[in-house]
């Protein structure tokens, strides 16, 4: 182990500026993904703030058409360009080879290709923004998406291309995990983050082709009028929803599983204790990945789907609760008798536990058939998935970014600022989204540009909350950028973690390790070993 030397030796400084564009180094590709997706996060976040502004009070601040475009782009950008790629493609890319003790991912060139595919697809979608926009909602439901006069083709093609990028990333990771583990790194010695990434990769490979061909069929519907989903030509619009959700429901787990993986890392490191129930957490990731393929129909309980399908999907959906609950139980139990330190990553991890628990429990309402009939497509659903996606994934992501920041850039973020922005985001998040549960229960439908005056109070509260989130993120981006240049130098292992990525320099050298490490024990061997 050696200290990062100034000016040469680490992956950030090797080669000039232009070498970044042709780099095959997984760390650099990861960093490029990180900045690109965070940029999209800012754009999507601005759209969110505008949406909340429109909903501050009844009446129209923007025209309904503009509002429809706002929520469409908010959804599409946040989902396809931020939350799906960011953890696997940015943090996963950076840390997967480091954590299994490899020099790179299995197919570095494919890795770069998938980054450029992502950029290409994102550009297509952004081009739509400047050529009339899109007003279909991110779900592209037929037949609305077949009739809409807006640039649906551009966005769907963008989704298709980005889908391919996601497939290639998943494929790359699966092969890497299977074939490139360091000597001694058995599956059961892998950090739980990698189990999560592996489960995610399975979904990416198996589910993404379905959305790929489905959006392509939407393009074909518009160009060649093939009519699979067009009732005017004899097709069935509900069939589109099936294909769409066959991907998009597992996609929710593409988003949340890596977040869960990060929590497993952070919780153990900051309570300096072995994870409670390693095997259960590892296999529950796989179980979630598998079950996630069988539950998509709960998005369609009132869509005109057959009662039999409703029955099956309702009971299968209930099953997801079990592995998820085991995870939450085990993370909580890990804290027991630990030695807990409340640094920023841990604060985010604890926020994850609170918010994700709420998100998960509210899922029970939506999985129950008769209750979902009322709650479906209301703000209850909006609040539920923001609790899961933002309260879950984004909190996990922020925990991960802060946790690995010293490793990625060799500098610490400012601790006090980190805590302040964590507090702002946590508070703002709850103020924004808790009222939405109540609004949904009162029957306020989603995607409404204007609403009945009786919903005003809680909408105002919600909008005010969104400003706190906005302030929190603004502060966070400011101090993170500041710390890139002025932050305190970080040591190789500032948190005293045991996983492999901390066994090399900060930032890591070009080929990750001086010598490929040999693994002799599991990743969480903290504290006192029990003697047999």
């Amino acid at each position, binding site marked *: 182990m050696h200290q990062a030397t100034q000016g040469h030796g680490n992956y950030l400084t090797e080669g000039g500026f232009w070498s970044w564009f042709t780099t095959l180094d997984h760390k650099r590709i990861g960093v490029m993904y990180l900045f690109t997706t965070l940029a999209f996060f800012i754009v999507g976040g601005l759209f969110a703030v505008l949406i909340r502004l429109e909903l501050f009070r009844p009446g129209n601040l923007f025209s309904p058409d503009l509002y429809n475009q706002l929520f469409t782009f908010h959804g599409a950008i946040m989902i396809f360009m931020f939350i799906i790629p960011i953890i696997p493609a940015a943090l996963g890319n950076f840390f997967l080879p480091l954590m299994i003790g*490899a*020099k*790179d*991912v*299995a*197919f*570095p060139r*494919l890795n770069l290709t998938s980054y450029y595919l992502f950029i290409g697809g994102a550009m297509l979608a952004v081009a739509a923004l400047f050529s009339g926009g899109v007003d279909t909602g991110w779900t592209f439901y037929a037949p609305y998406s077949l009739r809409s006069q807006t640039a649906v083709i551009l966005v769907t093609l963008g989704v298709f291309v980005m889908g391919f990028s996601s*497939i290639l990333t998943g*494929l*790359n990771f*699966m*092969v*890497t995990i*299977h*074939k*490139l583990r360091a000597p001694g790194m058995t599956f059961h010695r892998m950090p739980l983050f990698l189990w999560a990434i592996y489960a995610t990769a399975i979904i990416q*490979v*198996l*589910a*993404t*082709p*379905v959305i*790929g*061909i*489905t959006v392509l*069929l939407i393009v*074909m519907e518009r160009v*060649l*009028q*093939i*009519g*699979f989903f*067009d009732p005017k*030509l*004899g*097709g*069935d619009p509900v*069939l589109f929803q099936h*294909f769409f959700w066959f991907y998009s429901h597992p996609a929710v787990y593409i988003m949340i599983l890596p977040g869960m993986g990060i929590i497993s890392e952070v919780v153990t490191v900051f309570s300096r204790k072995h994870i409670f129930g390693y095997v259960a957490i590892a296999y529950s990731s796989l179980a979630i990945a598998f079950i996630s393929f069988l539950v998509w129909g709960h998005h369609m309980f009132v869509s005109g789907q057959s009662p039999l399908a409703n029955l099956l999907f309702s009971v299968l959906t209930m099953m997801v609760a079990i592995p998820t609950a085991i995870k939450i139980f085990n993370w909580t139990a890990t804290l027991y008798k630990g030695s807990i330190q409340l640094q920023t990553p841990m604060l985010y991890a604890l926020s994850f536990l609170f918010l994700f628990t709420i998100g998960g429990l509210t899922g029970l309402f939506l999985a129950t058939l008769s209750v979902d009939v009322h709650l479906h497509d209301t703000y209850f659903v909006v609040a539920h998935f923001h609790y899961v996606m933002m309260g879950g994934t984004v909190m996990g992501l922020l925990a991960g970014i802060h946790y690995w920041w010293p490793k990625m850039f060799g500098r610490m973020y400012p601790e006090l600022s980190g805590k302040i922005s964590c507090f702002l985001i946590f508070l703002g998040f709850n103020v924004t989204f808790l009222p939405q549960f109540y609004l949904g229960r009162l029957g306020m439908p989603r995607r409404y540009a204007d609403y009945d005056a009786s919903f005003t109070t809680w909408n105002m509260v919600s909008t005010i909350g969104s400003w706190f989130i906005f302030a929190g993120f603004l502060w966070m981006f400011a101090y993170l950028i500041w710390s890139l240049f002025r932050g305190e130098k970080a040591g190789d292992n500032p948190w005293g973690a045991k996983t492999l990525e901390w066994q090399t320099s900060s930032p890591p050298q070009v*080929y990750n390790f001086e010598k490929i490490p040999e693994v002799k024990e599991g990743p969480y061997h903290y504290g006192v070993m029990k003697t047999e």
Partner: protein
Amino acid sequence: MNTQAGSHSVPHHFETAQQAFESAKLGMWLFLVTEILLFGVLFCIYIMYRGLYPEMFHEASLHLNRVMGATNTAVLLISSFTMAMAVHRAKHDDRVTAVRMLAITFFCGVIFMTIKYFEYTHKIHEGLLPAGMFSYDHVTHVKMPLFFSLYFMMTGLHGIHVLVGMGLILWVMVRCQRGAFGHAYSTPVELTGIYWHLVDLIWIYLFPLLYLIG
């Protein structure tokens, strides 16, 4: 490094050539999985509409030419055989035969696409087109255009895969001719082979589903 394998060397992040080969192969299999699901959606649409309107499928499939379909099936099966032979020969350093076999495979692809071309032009001429453009007069079932949407989407997507496969074969053939492959390194031929067989495998299902189930 084996001299037989020409200029090829193991990428730096792999320990052994075997590890590199296995990784590439697993990657290819995973890619095939995505291909199967890509086609799977179309098969699924086929099954749904066929289940709902069996009599329409019966009527529509009579408009397809069984002989042409069967010929294409045979052509693809033969090409699969020659591809397997090519892989085998390339692995055993028989460059000349391998190139010859690849050439036959490529030529089979050409025949396949030519027959496809004649089928397409005939359908287009008759107006048996995807739903919105369908203009064939003598139909009894209103939803018959859906069958031809399926026909064109499925065979079209398959045709694109054939073309991509032909491109790959051409590329491998040139490299093989230059002596890039041998017993130590033949990953590209092998992967192209697997891909080409999958294209064949999909056609094996497409043929009876579209042409035969009357």
